[in-house]
């Protein structure tokens, strides 16, 4: 994975570069807007992380320029402005996801993975499969090892999201935004309880367990470890 990071805060950029390299990505870094735009058009990246407030050229202008020139690389916008209208402005300018500072690296990493995945599998699927767990999106049924599992509508959407992002870490915020469609801070870990209910239905009595908790980050659905 090749990532372009356009961020003027040296400390944050250094930290992010180090952390991204640790998870096995190639990172290029630009410290101001103009340089960032030149790098973005000059090379092929899998995903870009662009800060909104930059010297010489702001993040949204870079994004608009890229989109106007036909560049479709997924972009994650970073911003200290976390309000809804700022987020909307970011997405409208052509951003694919928006993350407000401060954030945990796990959250950023999970979102980057999700962006990459979105780029590759855009064809409409009717069946999802992870190990022996199968989901039929048309019949709205879930089967594991040939045994039918009955799920509430919300549990179905939750599992669908996890299966679509199988093998990737998904954070609680990502789940709240995508499955419940609300942007808010739940204070207590309401999601954990929903996950443990779902886990009871899809993992209890089956082997191996598929739904794992990733400490300090979120959850992952995968068939080994």
């Amino acid at each position, binding site marked *: 994975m090749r990532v372009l990071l356009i961020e003027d805060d040296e400390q944050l950029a250094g930290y992010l570069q180090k952390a991204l390299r640790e998870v096995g990505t190639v990172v290029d870094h630009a410290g101001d807007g103009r340089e960032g735009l030149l790098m973005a058009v000059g090379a092929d990246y899998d995903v870009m992380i662009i800060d909104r407030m930059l010297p010489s050229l702001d993040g949204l202008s870079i994004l608009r320029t890229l989109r106007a020139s036909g560049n479709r690389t997924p972009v994650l916008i970073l911003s200290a402005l976390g309000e809804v209208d700022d987020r909307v402005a970011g997405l409208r300018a052509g951003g694919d996801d928006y993350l407000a500072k401060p954030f945990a690296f796990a959250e950023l990493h999970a979102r980057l993975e999700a962006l990459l995945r979105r780029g590759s599998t855009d064809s409409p699927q009717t069946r999802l499969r992870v190990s022996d767990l199968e989901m039929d999106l048309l019949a709205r049924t879930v089967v594991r090892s040939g045994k039918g599992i009955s799920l509430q509508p919300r549990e179905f959407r939750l599992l669908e999201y996890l299966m679509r992002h199988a093998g990737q870490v998904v954070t609680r915020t990502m789940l709240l935004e995508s499955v419940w469609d609300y*942007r808010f801070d739940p*204070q207590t870990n309401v999601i954990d*309880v929903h996950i443990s*209910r779902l886990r009871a239905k899809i993992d209890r009595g089956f082997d191996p367990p598929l739904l794992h908790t990733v400490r300090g980050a979120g959850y992952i659905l995968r068939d080994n470890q």
Partner: protein
Amino acid sequence: MTTSRLLRSFTFRLALLYMLLSLGSVVVLLGYIYWATAGYMDRQVDSTIEAEIRGLAEQYQSRGLVGLSDIISERVSHDPKGASVYLLADASFAPIVGNLSDWPRAPVSASGWMRFELRDWGRDRSEEHEARARTFRLRGDLHLLVGRDVRDLQATHRLILDALTWGLAITAALALGVGLLMSSRVMHRIEAINLTSREIMEGDLSRRVPRDGSGDDFDRLAENLNRMLERIEKLMAAVRQVSDNIAHDLRTPLTRLSTRLEQARNSNPQQTPDEISRAIDQAIEDAQELLGTFNALLRIARIESRSSQGDFTDLDLACLAQDIAELYEPVAAEKDQELSVEGQDPVPVRGDRDLLFQALANLVDNAIKYAPPGCRITIGTAGRDAGAEVSVADTGPGIPADLREKVFQRFYRTDASRSTPGSGLGLSLVRAVADMHEARILLADNAPGLRATIVFPKRGLEPD
């Protein structure tokens, strides 16, 4: 209000200008009246004299000197008051017949008109009065003079002039008086606004511009100014509170974090790597918590200072309540609490969907956190006449009546709640969200427990 300030004031100048304008128009009007009355009378007299002298000239032509003398004598005898003046004189201006003793020595205009003093004639000889006459030269070098005593006419002139002058004086006095009164009234009200602004500039933000409730321009100006001041005061208070909060309430956890890290560094060599990493984990947790508190504070401040309702959408409170219940039901079930929703009918409101969801989530979260196991939590919605409302009621310990206002303060925690994790910002955020929606948040006794209700303002009639 000093005189020089009065003279400099815009309203006074305006009043003065209006006064001059009205005086000007009154002068024009009175001038016309004078011309139409006194002037008309003058012209009447002139044309009568003109007609008479032409008549006499014709008589002279047809009947000769004797005939003319007869007519003049007759007219004189018919006019004992002497209102008319006649004189026929020969070539050397010696009188032949008429009621004047001499040919008057006064300049004659090109058209034959003259004015002279009547002295030796009339009943009242002591008095001099003016006569206006026309002279005519007859064939045979005779001079004819016909005139009128204009004493009465002049008296009338004076009368009219006097009346007009008084009228003008009264108008001027009235205009000046009303102008002064008006400008001092207007200045008084502007001065009230100035006074308030000065007091505010000196630091008293609670001052308000006095209103008289009349709903006129000044009253509306005062109302708008007051609204603006209220908003400014609120924003200032919010800014001050955030800085106060940072000073008071964030120092403690920061100190704790720093102490924890210092202890980890200065630990004795026997400490296992496990223990050190646990200390670091704890420090990270502290830092995360601090960040969370910061975010919550900033969020509240931002919501409070946000005025635009631009991104409000039409939404259904009942639907929001269902979603909240569905999200929190498993959490409640884990604590053996029963979470249910009352009211299925749609309750339309206009608002920010995510923020309202956050507010409801905070209320439900509080209910689950503070009510003991076995309690019932009910989310209710209703579209009452007074406006839409949504409530979260529990059967837990509730909040004592005297603390129900305090719990909305930032970082305030009741003694009973201190053992439970929490930032003390949840209800502050609920209030900020409610304020932003112009809604009221009410805490009441649920007997037993607490009932928190958000009451939305009644929606105005909308075209759609």
